[in-house]
């Protein structure tokens, strides 16, 4: 019977299957999908909070605090045109690469040389997104970065509260249980730390306010099999602080 089947098969042609490329592509696709979902959720929550506060805050109230500029080699995130946004994407990628090297000298990108940031133009105004695999002392995981508009007054767990569905309409699925904590970078820049959530991969999410009503989100995960995140919370806060310090 075996022989019959082998005769039927004949000589198999050369395969084009490259398992390493398949795995790399799958990781990239899943990271992008996770980031896009988060970005959409953040944008929706931000808009909902902004609408709520604009209806309840008196006119003329001061806007929320943003990170203060501290360095001379700062750049501005510009998104008026696609070309401007592309330039800002390159600057953001360089700033993040510098930030990772300064905050975690042992970290290396796999594959190098750094993180690639792309423009997200399906939201208005456009945002930026990128993801890269980091290797730190034998641990590997992904660092995903997003920068986008944040119109709510200030960034804290209170402003991140999940918007309630309209009366008479129930949510289609239960909210994902996530823990939120208001934290600060070593120099005191306020940030929000989100932990927990679906999926086997361990990780956390850090959001830091940027100038010009924007927020930067860093998502740090570990290996696919559930190992610890590739960066500690303290390291991620340091990375965020370095990166935010470059943006004016």
């Amino acid at each position, binding site marked *: 019977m*075996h022989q019959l*089947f082998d005769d039927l098969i004949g000589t198999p042609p050369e395969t084009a299957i490259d398992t390493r490329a398949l795995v790399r592509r799958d990781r990239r696709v899943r990271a992008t999908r996770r980031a896009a979902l988060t970005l959409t959720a953040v944008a929706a929550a931000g808009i909902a909070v902004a609408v709520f506060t604009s209806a309840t805050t008196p006119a003329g109230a001061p806007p929320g605090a943003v990170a203060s500029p501290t360095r001379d080699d700062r750049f501005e995130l510009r998104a008026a045109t696609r070309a401007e946004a592309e330039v800002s994407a390159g600057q953001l990628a360089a700033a993040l690469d510098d930030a990772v090297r300064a905050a975690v000298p042992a970290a290396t990108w796999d594959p190098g040389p750094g993180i690639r940031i792309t423009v997200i133009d399906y939201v208005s105004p456009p945002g930026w997104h990128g993801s890269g695999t980091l290797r730190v002392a034998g641990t590997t995981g992904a660092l995903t970065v997003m920068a986008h508009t944040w119109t709510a007054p200030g960034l804290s767990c209170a402003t991140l509260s999940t918007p309630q569905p309209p009366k008479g309409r129930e949510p289609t699925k239960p909210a994902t249980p996530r823990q939120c904590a208001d934290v600060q970078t070593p120099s005191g820049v306020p940030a929000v730390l989100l932990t927990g959530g679906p999926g086997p991969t361990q990780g956390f999410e850090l959001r830091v306010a940027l100038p010009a009503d924007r927020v930067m989100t860093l998502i740090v995960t570990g290996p696919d099999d559930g190992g610890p995140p590739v960066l500690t919370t303290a390291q991620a806060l340091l990375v965020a602080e370095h990166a935010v310090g470059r943006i004016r």
Partner: protein
Amino acid sequence: MAELDDEFHAFVAGRLDRWRRGAYLMCGDWHLADDLVSEAVIRLHRHWGKVRLAGNADAYAQKVLARCWLNERRRGWRRRERVDADPPSPEYRMEDRIVDRLPLADLLRSLGPRQRAVLILRFYLDHSVEETADILGVAPGTVKSQAARALEQLRAARVTP
């Protein structure tokens, strides 16, 4: 994680040829066979951490591959477009061993996807009745009856199993 990945790639490399052959027998098209195996490799990698600890990686991989094939058959476009990758059959001569494969190919084509999978898992990939039933998610009795029916058709086509 790098060690995990290396272990995974070594595992796949050792079985890729067998998986491709099994997939080809199921679908009869090398391009589709490679697509099925690629999809199975991705799914296997997503759960590799747990699968390797459970110690049943081979059975799991085979199950994923068979499910990929059955899912592929359920896709809508298959009902609209059907491609026959094999050339027209040449004249059949009993004394020529190589043409024995033609009745087998006809038989495989005439079977439903699940029956075809039963035949291949049982008689080419050498899985037991219980393993085949587990891979396909059917009862062992179903595997036995479908395998017996397929063998009967093979004998009727004068192919000696």
